[in-house]
Protein backbone atom coordinates (compact mmCIF):
# COMPACT_ATOMS: atom_id res chain seq x y z
CA UNK A 1 0.00 0.00 0.00
CA UNK A 2 3.06 2.29 0.06
CA UNK A 3 2.55 2.98 -3.65
CA UNK A 4 -0.57 4.91 -2.62
CA UNK A 5 1.77 7.59 -1.21
CA UNK A 6 2.91 8.38 -4.74
CA UNK A 7 -0.66 8.14 -6.02
CA UNK A 8 -1.71 11.06 -3.79
CA UNK A 9 0.39 13.32 -6.06
CA UNK A 10 0.24 11.45 -9.35
CA UNK A 11 -3.53 10.91 -9.50
CA UNK A 12 -4.59 14.60 -9.39
CA UNK A 13 -1.82 15.48 -11.89
CA UNK A 14 -2.97 12.77 -14.32
CA UNK A 15 -6.60 13.72 -13.85
CA UNK A 16 -5.77 17.40 -14.40
CA UNK A 17 -3.90 16.64 -17.62
CA UNK A 18 -6.77 14.47 -18.90
CA UNK A 19 -9.34 17.16 -18.07
CA UNK A 20 -7.28 19.67 -20.00
CA UNK A 21 -7.33 17.39 -23.04
CA UNK A 22 -11.05 16.77 -22.65
CA UNK A 23 -11.90 20.49 -22.72
CA UNK A 24 -15.47 21.08 -24.04
CA UNK A 25 -16.53 17.45 -23.44
CA UNK A 26 -18.72 18.66 -20.58
CA UNK A 27 -20.28 15.43 -19.35
CA UNK A 28 -17.00 13.47 -19.38
CA UNK A 29 -15.23 16.31 -17.53
CA UNK A 30 -17.92 16.38 -14.84
CA UNK A 31 -17.87 12.62 -14.26
CA UNK A 32 -14.07 12.26 -14.29
CA UNK A 33 -13.45 15.31 -12.08
CA UNK A 34 -16.07 14.21 -9.58
CA UNK A 35 -14.78 10.62 -9.33
CA UNK A 36 -11.16 11.72 -8.78
CA UNK A 37 -12.27 14.45 -6.35
CA UNK A 38 -14.09 11.82 -4.27
CA UNK A 39 -11.03 9.54 -4.32
CA UNK A 40 -8.59 12.31 -3.22
CA UNK A 41 -9.54 12.43 0.49
CA UNK A 42 -9.92 8.65 0.62
CA UNK A 43 -6.36 7.73 -0.48
CA UNK A 44 -4.63 9.08 2.68
CA UNK A 45 -7.11 7.16 4.81
CA UNK A 46 -6.21 3.79 3.29
CA UNK A 47 -2.50 4.34 2.55
CA UNK A 48 0.08 2.77 4.89
CA UNK A 49 2.56 4.95 6.76
CA UNK A 50 6.08 4.90 5.44
CA UNK A 51 8.65 6.36 3.06
CA UNK A 52 8.34 6.30 -0.72
CA UNK A 53 11.43 6.56 -2.94
CA UNK A 54 10.99 8.15 -6.36
CA UNK A 55 13.56 7.27 -9.03
CA UNK A 56 16.15 5.79 -6.64
CA UNK A 57 16.52 3.35 -3.81
CA UNK A 58 16.41 3.34 0.02
CA UNK A 59 19.52 4.29 2.04
CA UNK A 60 22.32 1.69 1.96
CA UNK A 61 21.69 0.83 5.64
CA UNK A 62 18.27 -0.45 4.64
CA UNK A 63 19.62 -2.23 1.55
CA UNK A 64 22.21 -4.93 2.48
CA UNK A 65 22.40 -6.31 -1.09
CA UNK A 66 23.95 -3.09 -2.39
CA UNK A 67 26.04 -2.57 0.76
CA UNK A 68 27.79 -5.93 0.16
CA UNK A 69 29.46 -4.64 -3.04
CA UNK A 70 30.56 -1.24 -1.71
CA UNK A 71 34.02 -0.35 -0.33
CA UNK A 72 34.46 -0.03 3.44
CA UNK A 73 35.10 3.76 3.31
CA UNK A 74 31.52 4.16 2.10
CA UNK A 75 29.79 1.52 4.23
CA UNK A 76 31.61 2.81 7.31
CA UNK A 77 30.52 6.43 6.80
CA UNK A 78 27.36 8.47 7.17
CA UNK A 79 26.83 8.16 3.41
CA UNK A 80 25.07 4.87 4.08
CA UNK A 81 22.28 6.78 5.83
CA UNK A 82 21.77 9.26 2.99
CA UNK A 83 18.73 8.98 0.70
CA UNK A 84 19.76 8.56 -2.95
CA UNK A 85 16.21 9.24 -4.20
CA UNK A 86 13.42 11.81 -4.07
CA UNK A 87 11.80 10.87 -0.78
CA UNK A 88 8.21 11.29 0.34
CA UNK A 89 7.38 10.70 4.00
CA UNK A 90 3.83 9.75 4.99
CA UNK A 91 2.92 9.62 8.67
CA UNK A 92 -0.14 10.35 10.81
CA UNK A 93 0.32 14.15 10.56
CA UNK A 94 0.61 14.02 6.77
CA UNK A 95 -2.47 11.77 6.73
CA UNK A 96 -4.71 14.31 8.44
CA UNK A 97 -3.35 17.27 6.43
CA UNK A 98 -3.79 15.51 3.08
CA UNK A 99 -7.20 14.22 4.10
CA UNK A 100 -8.40 17.76 4.97
CA UNK A 101 -6.80 19.20 1.81
CA UNK A 102 -8.44 16.46 -0.28
CA UNK A 103 -11.79 17.06 1.39
CA UNK A 104 -11.68 20.83 0.77
CA UNK A 105 -10.58 20.12 -2.84
CA UNK A 106 -13.47 17.69 -3.30
CA UNK A 107 -16.03 20.16 -1.91
CA UNK A 108 -14.60 23.03 -3.99
CA UNK A 109 -14.61 20.95 -7.21
CA UNK A 110 -18.05 19.51 -6.44
CA UNK A 111 -19.48 23.01 -5.84
CA UNK A 112 -17.78 24.37 -8.95
CA UNK A 113 -19.15 21.56 -11.16
CA UNK A 114 -22.66 22.05 -9.83
CA UNK A 115 -22.68 25.83 -10.19
CA UNK A 116 -21.89 25.85 -13.91
CA UNK A 117 -23.67 24.23 -16.83
CA UNK A 118 -20.51 23.97 -18.96
CA UNK A 119 -17.52 22.99 -16.81
CA UNK A 120 -14.12 24.19 -17.97
CA UNK A 121 -11.52 21.46 -18.37
CA UNK A 122 -8.72 24.00 -18.00
CA UNK A 123 -10.17 25.40 -14.77
CA UNK A 124 -10.55 21.92 -13.24
CA UNK A 125 -7.02 21.10 -14.44
CA UNK A 126 -5.65 24.07 -12.49
CA UNK A 127 -7.52 23.09 -9.33
CA UNK A 128 -6.21 19.51 -9.50
CA UNK A 129 -2.65 20.62 -10.32
CA UNK A 130 -2.52 23.00 -7.37
CA UNK A 131 -3.94 20.29 -5.07
CA UNK A 132 -1.29 17.83 -6.29
CA UNK A 133 1.44 20.44 -5.79
CA UNK A 134 0.43 21.25 -2.20
CA UNK A 135 0.09 17.51 -1.42
CA UNK A 136 3.67 17.05 -2.68
CA UNK A 137 4.82 19.99 -0.51
CA UNK A 138 3.30 18.24 2.53
CA UNK A 139 4.95 14.90 1.67
CA UNK A 140 8.35 15.96 0.33
CA UNK A 141 11.52 15.32 2.28
CA UNK A 142 13.51 16.74 -0.61
CA UNK A 143 13.86 20.51 -0.61
CA UNK A 144 14.42 20.90 -4.36
CA UNK A 145 11.35 18.78 -5.14
CA UNK A 146 9.47 20.95 -2.67
CA UNK A 147 10.62 24.09 -4.51
CA UNK A 148 9.41 22.72 -7.86
CA UNK A 149 5.94 22.00 -6.45
CA UNK A 150 5.95 25.36 -4.64
CA UNK A 151 6.31 27.06 -8.05
CA UNK A 152 3.63 24.81 -9.62
CA UNK A 153 1.25 25.70 -6.77
CA UNK A 154 1.90 29.45 -7.21
CA UNK A 155 1.41 29.33 -11.00
CA UNK A 156 -1.73 27.18 -10.70
CA UNK A 157 -3.22 29.58 -8.14
CA UNK A 158 -2.56 32.52 -10.47
CA UNK A 159 -4.18 30.47 -13.27
CA UNK A 160 -7.28 29.83 -11.13
CA UNK A 161 -7.61 33.59 -10.54
CA UNK A 162 -7.13 34.32 -14.26
CA UNK A 163 -9.92 31.86 -15.13
CA UNK A 164 -12.37 33.39 -12.64
CA UNK A 165 -13.44 36.15 -15.07
CA UNK A 166 -13.95 38.60 -12.20
CA UNK A 167 -13.19 42.29 -12.86
CA UNK A 168 -9.56 42.98 -11.97
CA UNK A 169 -8.61 39.31 -11.68
CA UNK A 170 -6.00 39.56 -14.46
CA UNK A 171 -4.20 42.41 -12.72
CA UNK A 172 -4.26 40.62 -9.37
CA UNK A 173 -2.96 37.35 -10.83
CA UNK A 174 -0.18 39.20 -12.65
CA UNK A 175 0.82 41.06 -9.48
CA UNK A 176 0.91 37.77 -7.59
CA UNK A 177 3.16 36.25 -10.23
CA UNK A 178 5.43 39.31 -10.29
CA UNK A 179 5.85 39.23 -6.51
CA UNK A 180 6.46 35.50 -6.86
CA UNK A 181 9.17 36.47 -9.34
CA UNK A 182 10.96 38.14 -6.43
CA UNK A 183 10.20 35.65 -3.63
CA UNK A 184 10.49 32.27 -5.38
CA UNK A 185 14.04 32.85 -6.71
CA UNK A 186 15.03 33.79 -3.15
CA UNK A 187 13.71 30.43 -1.99
CA UNK A 188 15.60 28.71 -4.80
CA UNK A 189 18.78 30.58 -3.88
CA UNK A 190 18.34 29.39 -0.29
CA UNK A 191 17.98 25.80 -1.56
CA UNK A 192 21.09 26.27 -3.74
CA UNK A 193 23.12 27.54 -0.76
CA UNK A 194 22.07 24.50 1.29
CA UNK A 195 22.97 22.20 -1.60
CA UNK A 196 26.33 23.92 -1.92
CA UNK A 197 27.07 23.57 1.78
CA UNK A 198 25.85 20.00 2.32
CA UNK A 199 26.00 18.48 -1.16
CA UNK A 200 22.52 16.99 -0.74
CA UNK A 201 18.94 18.22 -1.10
CA UNK A 202 17.32 15.63 1.17
CA UNK A 203 16.10 17.41 4.31
CA UNK A 204 16.70 14.50 6.72
CA UNK A 205 20.22 14.08 5.30
CA UNK A 206 20.98 17.78 5.72
CA UNK A 207 19.89 17.66 9.38
CA UNK A 208 21.95 14.49 9.92
CA UNK A 209 24.99 16.22 8.37
CA UNK A 210 24.56 19.22 10.69
CA UNK A 211 23.96 17.18 13.84
CA UNK A 212 26.86 14.80 13.29
CA UNK A 213 29.38 17.52 12.45
CA UNK A 214 29.79 16.57 8.77
CA UNK A 215 29.15 20.24 8.06
CA UNK A 216 29.48 23.24 10.36
CA UNK A 217 25.98 24.63 11.07
CA UNK A 218 27.53 27.90 12.28
CA UNK A 219 28.66 28.58 8.71
CA UNK A 220 27.08 31.92 7.63
CA UNK A 221 25.92 30.17 4.42
CA UNK A 222 23.27 28.37 6.50
CA UNK A 223 22.12 31.61 8.05
CA UNK A 224 21.77 33.24 4.64
CA UNK A 225 19.85 30.18 3.44
CA UNK A 226 17.53 30.47 6.48
CA UNK A 227 16.72 34.11 5.60
CA UNK A 228 16.06 33.30 1.96
CA UNK A 229 13.88 30.25 2.67
CA UNK A 230 11.86 32.14 5.32
CA UNK A 231 11.25 34.85 2.70
CA UNK A 232 9.87 32.22 0.28
CA UNK A 233 7.74 30.83 3.13
CA UNK A 234 6.21 34.28 3.73
CA UNK A 235 5.20 34.44 0.06
CA UNK A 236 3.78 30.92 -0.11
CA UNK A 237 1.71 31.31 3.02
CA UNK A 238 0.65 34.94 2.60
CA UNK A 239 2.22 36.34 5.77
CA UNK A 240 3.33 40.03 5.74
CA UNK A 241 4.40 41.67 3.47
CA UNK A 242 2.47 39.33 1.16
CA UNK A 243 -0.79 39.56 3.13
CA UNK A 244 -2.24 42.29 0.89
CA UNK A 245 -1.68 40.37 -2.32
CA UNK A 246 -2.93 37.12 -0.76
CA UNK A 247 -6.16 38.71 0.49
CA UNK A 248 -6.53 40.36 -2.93
CA UNK A 249 -6.05 36.96 -4.55
CA UNK A 250 -8.85 35.45 -2.44
CA UNK A 251 -11.16 38.32 -3.30
CA UNK A 252 -10.63 37.88 -7.05
CA UNK A 253 -11.27 34.14 -6.99
CA UNK A 254 -14.67 32.50 -7.30
CA UNK A 255 -15.88 31.54 -3.80
CA UNK A 256 -15.22 27.79 -4.19
CA UNK A 257 -11.76 28.50 -5.62
CA UNK A 258 -11.02 30.91 -2.76
CA UNK A 259 -11.97 28.18 -0.28
CA UNK A 260 -9.40 25.91 -1.92
CA UNK A 261 -6.65 28.55 -2.30
CA UNK A 262 -6.81 29.44 1.40
CA UNK A 263 -6.29 25.74 2.22
CA UNK A 264 -3.19 25.83 -0.03
CA UNK A 265 -1.84 28.78 1.98
CA UNK A 266 -2.52 27.06 5.31
CA UNK A 267 -0.80 23.80 4.37
CA UNK A 268 2.13 25.53 2.63
CA UNK A 269 2.64 27.53 5.83
CA UNK A 270 2.66 24.37 7.93
CA UNK A 271 4.75 22.15 5.62
CA UNK A 272 7.45 24.70 4.80
CA UNK A 273 7.35 26.09 8.35
CA UNK A 274 8.07 22.65 9.83
CA UNK A 275 10.96 22.17 7.37
CA UNK A 276 12.48 25.56 8.29
CA UNK A 277 12.26 24.76 12.00
CA UNK A 278 13.79 21.31 11.43
CA UNK A 279 16.66 22.64 9.33
CA UNK A 280 17.50 25.67 11.47
CA UNK A 281 16.71 24.17 14.88
CA UNK A 282 19.89 25.71 16.34
CA UNK A 283 19.09 29.35 15.40
CA UNK A 284 16.72 30.83 18.05
CA UNK A 285 16.15 33.94 15.96
CA UNK A 286 14.32 31.81 13.38
CA UNK A 287 11.62 31.04 15.95
CA UNK A 288 11.51 34.74 16.88
CA UNK A 289 11.04 35.58 13.20
CA UNK A 290 8.09 33.14 13.09
CA UNK A 291 6.49 34.86 16.10
CA UNK A 292 7.08 38.43 14.84
CA UNK A 293 5.72 37.76 11.33
CA UNK A 294 2.77 35.87 12.81
CA UNK A 295 1.81 38.73 15.14
CA UNK A 296 2.18 41.16 12.22
CA UNK A 297 -0.14 38.96 10.12
CA UNK A 298 -2.72 38.81 12.90
CA UNK A 299 -2.66 42.52 13.73
CA UNK A 300 -2.57 43.76 10.13
CA UNK A 301 -4.95 41.14 8.73
CA UNK A 302 -7.63 41.45 11.38
CA UNK A 303 -7.48 45.24 11.74
CA UNK A 304 -7.65 45.62 7.94
CA UNK A 305 -10.56 43.14 7.81
CA UNK A 306 -12.73 45.18 10.17
CA UNK A 307 -12.38 48.26 7.96
CA UNK A 308 -13.37 46.55 4.70
CA UNK A 309 -16.58 47.37 2.90
CA UNK A 310 -16.31 44.42 0.49
CA UNK A 311 -17.09 41.10 2.16
CA UNK A 312 -14.80 39.11 -0.13
CA UNK A 313 -11.87 41.29 0.89
CA UNK A 314 -13.00 41.17 4.51
CA UNK A 315 -12.89 37.38 4.66
CA UNK A 316 -9.61 37.45 2.68
CA UNK A 317 -7.94 39.61 5.32
CA UNK A 318 -9.46 37.53 8.13
CA UNK A 319 -8.07 34.36 6.54
CA UNK A 320 -4.61 35.94 6.41
CA UNK A 321 -4.91 37.15 10.01
CA UNK A 322 -5.87 33.73 11.32
CA UNK A 323 -2.68 32.26 9.78
CA UNK A 324 -0.76 34.07 12.50
CA UNK A 325 -2.10 31.72 15.17
CA UNK A 326 -0.50 28.77 13.37
CA UNK A 327 2.83 30.60 13.07
CA UNK A 328 2.81 31.45 16.80
CA UNK A 329 2.19 27.80 17.68
CA UNK A 330 5.17 26.71 15.56
CA UNK A 331 7.35 29.60 16.72
CA UNK A 332 6.90 28.93 20.45
CA UNK A 333 8.44 25.52 19.82
CA UNK A 334 6.98 23.54 22.75
CA UNK A 335 5.18 20.22 22.22
CA UNK A 336 1.86 21.76 23.30
CA UNK A 337 2.22 24.89 21.16
CA UNK A 338 3.19 22.90 18.06
CA UNK A 339 0.19 20.58 18.58
CA UNK A 340 -2.05 23.64 19.01
CA UNK A 341 -0.57 25.34 15.93
CA UNK A 342 -1.04 22.27 13.75
CA UNK A 343 -4.56 21.75 15.10
CA UNK A 344 -5.32 25.40 14.35
CA UNK A 345 -4.09 24.82 10.77
CA UNK A 346 -6.54 21.95 10.28
CA UNK A 347 -9.37 23.96 11.84
CA UNK A 348 -8.64 27.09 9.86
CA UNK A 349 -8.56 25.23 6.56
CA UNK A 350 -12.04 23.84 7.36
CA UNK A 351 -13.79 26.90 8.75
CA UNK A 352 -12.36 29.44 6.30
CA UNK A 353 -13.40 27.18 3.41
CA UNK A 354 -16.91 27.16 4.87
CA UNK A 355 -16.96 30.95 5.21
CA UNK A 356 -15.77 31.49 1.64
CA UNK A 357 -18.50 29.16 0.38
CA UNK A 358 -21.05 30.89 2.63
CA UNK A 359 -20.15 34.37 1.42
CA UNK A 360 -20.36 32.91 -2.09
CA UNK A 361 -24.07 32.27 -1.52
CA UNK A 362 -24.58 36.01 -0.88
CA UNK A 363 -22.75 36.81 -4.09
CA UNK A 364 -24.88 34.24 -5.91
CA UNK A 365 -28.12 35.72 -4.51
CA UNK A 366 -27.35 39.40 -5.01
CA UNK A 367 -24.49 39.68 -7.50
CA UNK A 368 -22.62 42.14 -5.28
CA UNK A 369 -19.98 41.89 -2.59
CA UNK A 370 -20.32 45.52 -1.42
CA UNK A 371 -21.57 45.33 2.17
CA UNK A 372 -23.16 48.81 1.96
CA UNK A 373 -25.44 47.66 -0.86
CA UNK A 374 -26.71 44.62 1.08
CA UNK A 375 -29.19 44.04 3.87
CA UNK A 376 -32.18 42.03 5.03
CA UNK A 377 -31.05 38.71 3.55
CA UNK A 378 -32.12 36.75 6.63
CA UNK A 379 -35.73 36.46 5.45
CA UNK A 380 -34.76 34.84 2.14
CA UNK A 381 -32.74 31.84 3.36
CA UNK A 382 -32.69 31.75 7.18
CA UNK A 383 -31.11 28.28 7.15
CA UNK A 384 -28.05 29.50 5.23
CA UNK A 385 -27.87 32.58 7.50
CA UNK A 386 -27.80 30.13 10.42
CA UNK A 387 -24.94 28.17 8.88
CA UNK A 388 -23.07 31.42 8.29
CA UNK A 389 -23.35 32.63 11.86
CA UNK A 390 -22.21 29.22 13.05
CA UNK A 391 -19.14 29.44 10.80
CA UNK A 392 -18.42 32.96 12.11
CA UNK A 393 -18.68 31.77 15.70
CA UNK A 394 -16.31 28.91 14.94
CA UNK A 395 -13.70 31.18 13.36
CA UNK A 396 -13.82 33.58 16.32
CA UNK A 397 -13.24 30.68 18.74
CA UNK A 398 -16.62 30.26 20.43
CA UNK A 399 -16.98 26.99 22.41
CA UNK A 400 -17.55 24.08 21.88
CA UNK A 401 -16.16 24.17 18.35
CA UNK A 402 -12.74 23.16 17.05
CA UNK A 403 -11.18 26.65 16.78
CA UNK A 404 -12.06 27.28 20.43
CA UNK A 405 -10.07 24.17 21.36
CA UNK A 406 -7.02 25.09 19.29
CA UNK A 407 -7.02 28.75 20.34
CA UNK A 408 -7.39 27.76 24.00
CA UNK A 409 -4.44 25.37 23.61
CA UNK A 410 -2.42 28.14 21.96
CA UNK A 411 -3.19 30.59 24.77
CA UNK A 412 -2.33 28.00 27.43
CA UNK A 413 0.91 27.09 25.66
CA UNK A 414 1.91 30.77 25.35
CA UNK A 415 1.42 31.22 29.11
CA UNK A 416 3.30 27.99 29.87
CA UNK A 417 6.17 29.09 27.61
CA UNK A 418 6.46 32.35 29.60
CA UNK A 419 4.78 34.67 27.07
CA UNK A 420 1.54 35.95 28.68
CA UNK A 421 1.72 38.95 26.30
CA UNK A 422 1.24 36.58 23.37
CA UNK A 423 -1.77 35.03 25.08
CA UNK A 424 -3.26 38.51 25.55
CA UNK A 425 -2.64 39.40 21.89
CA UNK A 426 -4.38 36.19 20.79
CA UNK A 427 -7.40 36.83 23.05
CA UNK A 428 -7.66 40.45 21.92
CA UNK A 429 -7.50 39.53 18.23
CA UNK A 430 -10.07 36.74 18.65
CA UNK A 431 -12.48 39.33 20.07
CA UNK A 432 -11.81 41.64 17.13
CA UNK A 433 -12.34 38.71 14.72
CA UNK A 434 -15.73 38.14 16.35
CA UNK A 435 -16.59 41.86 16.04
CA UNK A 436 -15.52 41.89 12.39
CA UNK A 437 -17.71 38.97 11.55
CA UNK A 438 -20.70 40.31 13.48
CA UNK A 439 -20.35 43.69 11.79
CA UNK A 440 -20.51 42.05 8.36
CA UNK A 441 -23.28 39.68 9.43
CA UNK A 442 -25.44 42.53 10.73
CA UNK A 443 -24.94 44.57 7.56
CA UNK A 444 -25.72 41.65 5.25
CA UNK A 445 -28.47 39.77 7.05
CA UNK A 446 -30.04 41.94 9.74
CA UNK A 447 -30.13 45.59 8.68
CA UNK A 448 -33.12 46.74 6.55
CA UNK A 449 -32.99 45.63 2.93
CA UNK A 450 -32.05 48.43 0.49
CA UNK A 451 -34.86 49.23 -1.96
CA UNK A 452 -32.80 48.68 -5.10
CA UNK A 453 -31.41 45.29 -4.03
CA UNK A 454 -32.47 42.39 -6.23
CA UNK A 455 -32.29 39.01 -4.50
CA UNK A 456 -32.46 35.56 -6.06
CA UNK A 457 -34.08 33.07 -3.73
CA UNK A 458 -32.19 30.06 -5.12
CA UNK A 459 -28.83 28.90 -3.77
CA UNK A 460 -27.04 25.85 -5.28
CA UNK A 461 -27.71 22.89 -3.01
CA UNK A 462 -24.11 21.69 -3.53
CA UNK A 463 -22.86 24.81 -1.69
CA UNK A 464 -25.20 24.17 1.25
CA UNK A 465 -24.12 20.51 1.32
CA UNK A 466 -20.43 21.52 1.36
CA UNK A 467 -21.01 24.02 4.17
CA UNK A 468 -22.84 21.42 6.27
CA UNK A 469 -20.06 18.84 5.77
CA UNK A 470 -17.40 21.35 6.86
CA UNK A 471 -19.41 22.51 9.88
CA UNK A 472 -20.07 18.93 11.01
CA UNK A 473 -16.33 18.17 10.94
CA UNK A 474 -15.62 21.42 12.84
CA UNK A 475 -18.12 20.37 15.51
CA UNK A 476 -16.74 16.81 15.75
CA UNK A 477 -13.16 18.15 16.11
CA UNK A 478 -14.46 20.59 18.74
CA UNK A 479 -16.11 17.91 20.86
CA UNK A 480 -13.40 15.28 20.27
CA UNK A 481 -10.20 17.25 19.61
CA UNK A 482 -8.03 14.18 20.25
CA UNK A 483 -9.08 12.78 16.86
CA UNK A 484 -6.88 15.48 15.33
CA UNK A 485 -4.35 16.31 18.05
CA UNK A 486 -3.24 12.67 18.49
CA UNK A 487 -2.09 12.66 14.85
CA UNK A 488 0.72 15.20 15.20
CA UNK A 489 3.18 13.05 17.18
CA UNK A 490 5.52 12.48 14.23
CA UNK A 491 6.04 16.21 13.66
CA UNK A 492 6.38 17.03 17.37
CA UNK A 493 9.08 14.38 17.65
CA UNK A 494 11.03 16.06 14.84
CA UNK A 495 10.68 19.58 16.26
CA UNK A 496 11.24 19.10 19.98
CA UNK A 497 14.54 18.06 21.53
Amino acid at each position, binding site marked *: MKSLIALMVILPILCGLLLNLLHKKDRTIKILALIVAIILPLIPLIASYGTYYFGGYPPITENPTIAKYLPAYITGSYLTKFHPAITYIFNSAQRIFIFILGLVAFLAIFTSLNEVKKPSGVYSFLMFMATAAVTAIILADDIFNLYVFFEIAAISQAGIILSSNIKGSY*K*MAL*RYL*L*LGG*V*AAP*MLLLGVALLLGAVGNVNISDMILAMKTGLVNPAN*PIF*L*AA*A*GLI*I*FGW*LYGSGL*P*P*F*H*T*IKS*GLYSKALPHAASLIQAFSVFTLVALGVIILRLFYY*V*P*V*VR*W*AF*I*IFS*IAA*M*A*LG*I*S*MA*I*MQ*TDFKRLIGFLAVGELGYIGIGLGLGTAMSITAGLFQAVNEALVTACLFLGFGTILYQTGTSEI*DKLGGLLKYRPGVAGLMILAGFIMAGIPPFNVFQSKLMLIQSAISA*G*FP*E*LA*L*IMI*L*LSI*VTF*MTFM*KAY*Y*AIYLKPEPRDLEVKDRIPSSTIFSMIVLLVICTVFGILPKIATSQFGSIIQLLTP
Partner: protein
Amino acid sequence: MRGRYIMTLYDTIIKKIREMEEKTRREAAVTNISASAVLTAELTIISTVLLMILMIRKLNIYVMVLVFLLGAFLLFSMMPITATLRREQTDSFYKMIFYVILTFGVLISLLYWGNINV
Protein backbone atom coordinates in the same frame (compact mmCIF):
# COMPACT_ATOMS: atom_id res chain seq x y z
CA MET B 1 -10.91 67.30 30.50
CA ARG B 2 -10.31 63.65 29.57
CA GLY B 3 -13.76 63.53 27.90
CA ARG B 4 -12.87 66.59 25.83
CA TYR B 5 -9.60 64.94 24.76
CA ILE B 6 -11.43 61.75 23.71
CA MET B 7 -13.96 63.78 21.69
CA THR B 8 -11.16 65.68 19.98
CA LEU B 9 -9.53 62.36 19.12
CA TYR B 10 -12.87 61.03 17.84
CA ASP B 11 -13.35 64.15 15.68
CA THR B 12 -9.82 63.81 14.31
CA ILE B 13 -10.47 60.18 13.35
CA ILE B 14 -13.82 61.04 11.69
CA LYS B 15 -12.13 63.88 9.79
CA LYS B 16 -9.41 61.50 8.61
CA ILE B 17 -11.97 58.92 7.46
CA ARG B 18 -13.78 61.65 5.47
CA GLU B 19 -10.51 62.70 3.87
CA MET B 20 -9.70 59.09 3.03
CA GLU B 21 -13.09 58.48 1.46
CA GLU B 22 -12.87 61.72 -0.51
CA LYS B 23 -9.51 60.61 -1.83
CA THR B 24 -10.93 57.29 -2.95
CA ARG B 25 -13.88 59.17 -4.52
CA ARG B 26 -16.44 57.42 -2.42
CA GLU B 27 -19.64 59.25 -1.72
CA ALA B 28 -20.97 57.06 1.09
CA ALA B 29 -21.57 58.81 4.42
CA VAL B 30 -19.45 58.04 7.46
CA THR B 31 -21.69 55.74 9.46
CA ASN B 32 -21.51 54.66 13.08
CA ILE B 33 -20.41 51.22 11.86
CA SER B 34 -17.49 52.52 9.80
CA ALA B 35 -16.39 54.90 12.59
CA SER B 36 -16.48 52.14 15.22
CA ALA B 37 -14.63 49.80 12.84
CA VAL B 38 -11.81 52.32 12.40
CA LEU B 39 -11.65 52.98 16.15
CA THR B 40 -11.49 49.23 16.87
CA ALA B 41 -8.73 48.78 14.30
CA GLU B 42 -6.86 51.73 15.83
CA LEU B 43 -7.03 50.33 19.35
CA THR B 44 -6.17 46.83 18.12
CA ILE B 45 -3.00 48.01 16.41
CA ILE B 46 -1.88 50.14 19.38
CA SER B 47 -2.51 47.41 21.97
CA THR B 48 -0.89 44.70 19.85
CA VAL B 49 2.26 46.76 19.25
CA LEU B 50 2.55 47.69 22.93
CA LEU B 51 2.02 44.09 24.06
CA MET B 52 4.58 42.95 21.50
CA ILE B 53 7.11 45.43 22.89
CA LEU B 54 6.69 43.81 26.32
CA MET B 55 8.30 40.66 24.93
CA ILE B 56 11.62 42.53 24.70
CA ARG B 57 11.87 41.88 28.48
CA LYS B 58 13.27 38.47 27.54
CA LEU B 59 16.35 40.26 26.22
CA ASN B 60 16.66 43.23 28.57
CA ILE B 61 14.09 44.77 30.89
CA TYR B 62 15.56 48.30 30.68
CA VAL B 63 15.53 48.24 26.89
CA MET B 64 11.90 47.07 27.08
CA VAL B 65 10.88 50.01 29.30
CA LEU B 66 12.66 52.45 27.00
CA VAL B 67 11.16 50.99 23.81
CA PHE B 68 7.71 50.80 25.46
CA LEU B 69 7.76 54.50 26.42
CA LEU B 70 9.11 55.49 23.02
CA GLY B 71 6.60 53.25 21.24
CA ALA B 72 3.67 54.55 23.30
CA PHE B 73 4.68 58.16 22.62
CA LEU B 74 5.08 57.54 18.89
CA LEU B 75 1.82 55.58 18.58
CA PHE B 76 -0.27 58.14 20.43
CA SER B 77 1.30 61.07 18.61
CA MET B 78 0.78 59.42 15.22
CA MET B 79 -2.93 58.72 15.76
CA PRO B 80 -4.97 57.83 13.76
CA ILE B 81 -2.61 55.11 12.55
CA THR B 82 -5.26 53.12 10.68
CA ALA B 83 -5.69 55.91 8.14
CA THR B 84 -2.03 55.58 7.13
CA LEU B 85 -2.21 51.81 7.38
CA ARG B 86 -5.20 51.63 5.07
CA ARG B 87 -3.54 53.96 2.56
CA GLU B 88 -0.37 51.85 2.55
CA GLN B 89 -2.08 48.46 2.27
CA THR B 90 -3.76 48.94 -1.07
CA ASP B 91 -3.43 46.86 -4.22
CA SER B 92 -0.76 49.21 -5.58
CA PHE B 93 2.05 47.07 -6.95
CA TYR B 94 4.66 49.73 -6.13
CA LYS B 95 3.66 49.79 -2.48
CA MET B 96 3.64 46.00 -2.33
CA ILE B 97 7.11 45.72 -3.85
CA PHE B 98 8.40 48.46 -1.50
CA TYR B 99 7.25 46.52 1.56
CA VAL B 100 8.55 43.24 0.13
CA ILE B 101 12.05 44.72 -0.25
CA LEU B 102 11.82 46.40 3.18
CA THR B 103 10.84 43.10 4.82
CA PHE B 104 13.65 41.30 3.07
CA GLY B 105 16.11 43.83 4.49
CA VAL B 106 14.63 43.51 8.00
CA LEU B 107 14.69 39.71 7.82
CA ILE B 108 18.33 39.57 6.76
CA SER B 109 19.30 42.11 9.48
CA LEU B 110 17.36 40.11 12.06
CA LEU B 111 19.20 36.91 11.13
CA TYR B 112 22.59 38.65 11.02
CA TRP B 113 21.94 40.32 14.38
CA GLY B 114 20.59 37.06 15.77
CA ASN B 115 23.67 35.17 14.68
CA ILE B 116 26.16 37.48 16.34
CA ASN B 117 24.13 38.02 19.51
CA VAL B 118 22.27 34.82 20.33
